């Protein structure tokens, strides 16, 4: 292994390679419940060239390679399940280009959500990207590649749908451009070429190391507001989603349900965020949204909370800092969630399942949903906090997560960014031809099987 270490130091410099117990400890785990898996090395490349050299080295030496962004996926996808090299890409965080007219940004994969957000605010204040609710340390690359979602997902879909192009280092070392950038100096989209981006979206780094991404940007309108619709009948919620999305003026629609504080238990809150260029337009959009729900409002079975402006501030934040605070509910610095991607009609079933599972496992919970597109689907999340200093508490959360993954699959949803055990469950239900194709693609791209092994294992 010494020769690998030496070669890595020659590629990135000694300051950016570690095989020390400290780095191996921290990089073996993420803040979720998955058991630690230690890498042999942690490497911090700064350029695509360095990444390429590392990939070639890993190939030669048949050493597993695990690309990592923010490490905040919580389902342990950047753990080195079979040892090897963890590639922390966060030194590759340059914002390379913003094309204002075509509204896209080209960034290195390790660029943090926060830094892109700040950069756009300062330099292109009329533009913004879709910010996920993960902490600002999460990377653009990491989030797009796992089909993340965020504050513009009602307007524009999954973050993977907002992708214009990629630069990827294949497992065999070639550097490939995906999208219009392969043929044009512009990164305006994936059409009209054969769309190869799908070879890297949702694969958890098993098909290559993405080093650059171009993502769509959207108007950053100066006036913002949020309406919080509340009801106590989960059967009504799909109707709320359907109607509110139908007017196509909101930017983000998210539901949240929590048993604590006591006054929130049993109620479903739906945040509808919208923005406008003028105060008049803001009121017009508000009225459109309200009108779409007038039947339910007229029946007095639901309505918008009368929030004075100071109380709306948390709901208008992107990312919402209060969401991370859920990790301290058990005074223990931990939470993990199952994000079930499913049709909106499954909301009542998912909602009840969350409550039942938490009760059965004796854990507290929080649930919610983010609407993708025009209610084309939703990401329904079941979050369980735990005290990481209490192994029985961690176990409880783990069991709740396992049961939730099964429940999501049973009802026709699919766990998002599924941890390794859940991946096996997904594979167990997958069409065999689809599985066959996944296997063939992986074999073709990664003949040595070095890329994040242990994930999407179909052999």
């Amino acid at each position, binding site marked *: 292994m010494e020769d690998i270490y030496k070669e890595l130091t020659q590629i990135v410099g000694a300051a950016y390679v570690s095989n020390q117990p400290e780095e191996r400890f921290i990089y073996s785990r993420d803040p979720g419940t998955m058991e630690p898996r230690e890498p042999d090395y942690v490497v911090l490349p700064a350029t695509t060239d360095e990444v390429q050299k590392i990939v070639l080295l890993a190939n030669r030496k048949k050493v597993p390679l695990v690309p990592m962004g923010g490490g905040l996926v919580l389902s342990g996808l950047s753990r080195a399940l079979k040892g090897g090299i963890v590639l922390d890409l966060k030194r590759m965080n340059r914002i390379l280009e913003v094309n204002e007219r075509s509204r896209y940004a080209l960034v290195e994969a390790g660029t943090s959500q926060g830094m892109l957000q700040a950069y756009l605010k300062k330099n292109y204040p009329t533009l913004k990207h879709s910010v996920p609710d993960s902490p600002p340390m999460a990377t653009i690359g990491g989030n797009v590649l796992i089909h993340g979602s965020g504050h513009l997902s009602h307007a524009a879909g999954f973050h993977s749908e907002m992708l214009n192009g990629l630069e990827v280092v294949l497992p065999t070392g070639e550097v490939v451009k995906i999208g219009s950038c392969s043929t044009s100096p512009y990164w305006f989209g994936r059409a009209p070429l054969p769309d190869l981006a799908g070879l890297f979206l949702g694969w958890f780094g098993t098909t290559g190391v993405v080093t650059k991404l171009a993502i769509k940007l959207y108007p950053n309108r100066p006036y913002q507001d949020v309406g919080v619709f*509340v*009801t*106590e009948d989960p059967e009504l919620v799909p109707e709320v989603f359907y109607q509110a999305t139908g007017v196509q003026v909101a930017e983000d629609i998210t539901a949240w349900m929590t048993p604590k*504080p*006591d*006054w*929130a238990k049993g*109620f479903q809150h739906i945040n509808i965020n919208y923005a406008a260029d003028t105060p008049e337009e803001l*009121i017009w959009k*508000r*009225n459109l949204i*309200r009108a779409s729900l007038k039947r339910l*409002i007229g029946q*007095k*079975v*639901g*309505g*918008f*909370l*009368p929030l*004075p*402006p*100071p*109380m709306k501030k948390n709901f208008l934040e992107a990312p919402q800092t209060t969401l991370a605070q859920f990790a301290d509910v058990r005074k223990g610095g931990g939470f993990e969630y199952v994000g079930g991607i499913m049709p909106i009609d499954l909301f009542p079933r998912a909602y009840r399942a969350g409550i039942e599972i938490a009760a059965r496992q004796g854990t507290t919970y929080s649930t919610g949903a983010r609407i993708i597109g025009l209610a084309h689907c939703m990401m329904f999340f079941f979050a369980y906090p735990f005290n990481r200093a209490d192994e029985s508490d961690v176990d409880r959360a783990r069991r709740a997560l396992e049961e939730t993954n099964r429940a999501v699959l049973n009802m026709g949803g699919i766990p998002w960014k599924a941890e390794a055990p859940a991946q096996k469950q997904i594979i167990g239900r997958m069409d065999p031809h689809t599985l066959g194709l996944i296997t063939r693609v992986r074999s073709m791209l990664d003949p040595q099987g070095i890329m994040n092994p242990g994930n999407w294992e179909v052999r």
Partner: protein
Amino acid sequence: MEGIKFSREVCEACKTYDCLTRCQYLKMDLQTAREERKRLLRGEKSRVLEECVTCYACEEYCPYGNHPFYNLVDQQEKLGVWPVPQPITKQQVLMMAPRGKITPKKVQSPVVNMCYFPMLTGSIRGKLFEGASTIVGSDIFCNVMWLHFGKNSVIRERLPEVIANIWEHYLKDSGVKELICFHDECYGTYTHLAPAFGIPVPFKPIHIFDYLNKRLDELKDQIKPLGQKVAYQRSCSNRLVPETQPWVDEIFRKIGAERMERKYDRENALCCGAVFRAQQQDDLADDVQKRNLDDMAAAGAKFCVFSCPACLFTLGESVLKRGIMPILMNDLCQIALGEGMKGG
């Protein structure tokens, strides 16, 4: 206890129906008012029940003190005519429930009742409130807000215990009989609503304006007149206690503030609009707030003085955007005494 002190006979004998003809929102002529009043007396559904915005003004307008609004709320609840969507009401009832966390504590006069506004206890400071004790918490929340939700039953259920909490846990053993009410709602609850609902109150409520007037007299040598034009935002609950309005004038006179004459003040005051939003009437809230703010600005006010925290939270930002400084009455008095605002 079930009934309120409402007399059918007084209502039947009324010739003017001020409660309805003077309503700023229903805008009824005498004939229509008569018909709707009769419907209400027959216990039938009337458009009044559906369209009432719960601004409390008719409690002030009724020349006989016959509690037309409290009666209306009873009717709403009885007939299931809800001014606010049910889930919102239910959630508010849970949110504002007593937590049962009250512990006895010794207090000394003056005792200021902050109701359930712990975020404002910091404003009880300085010369005006030297030596004051404050009491605050969910277990002493006055509960008058349920009038906006058609829920007199919640008032009946919770108010007696609230009064007992205040008396038994704070005042009785401390030998204090007077309670200064920071908020119009609390004063209105203990002097107006509780008697109307037949709920006894063993302590003597003092309105914050009354208290401020007396203190300003005691500190008059330290007052530096403000020389400012102010608008006063009259809260809905002040409609229950219109006798406090002359105290407002007196305070302003003492601190050298000119209460600008404007359209939407005194008996013609406009609600802050928070409740309209709960009723899902955003357009009405926008309209009322705009008229109110336009009126303040046209009057040339430099300050907008609030005595209600809810009005302050609702209108404060909008008022500030108009270049008018939102401020609580006691904070304005503190400026006149050279004490400045907290943190400023």
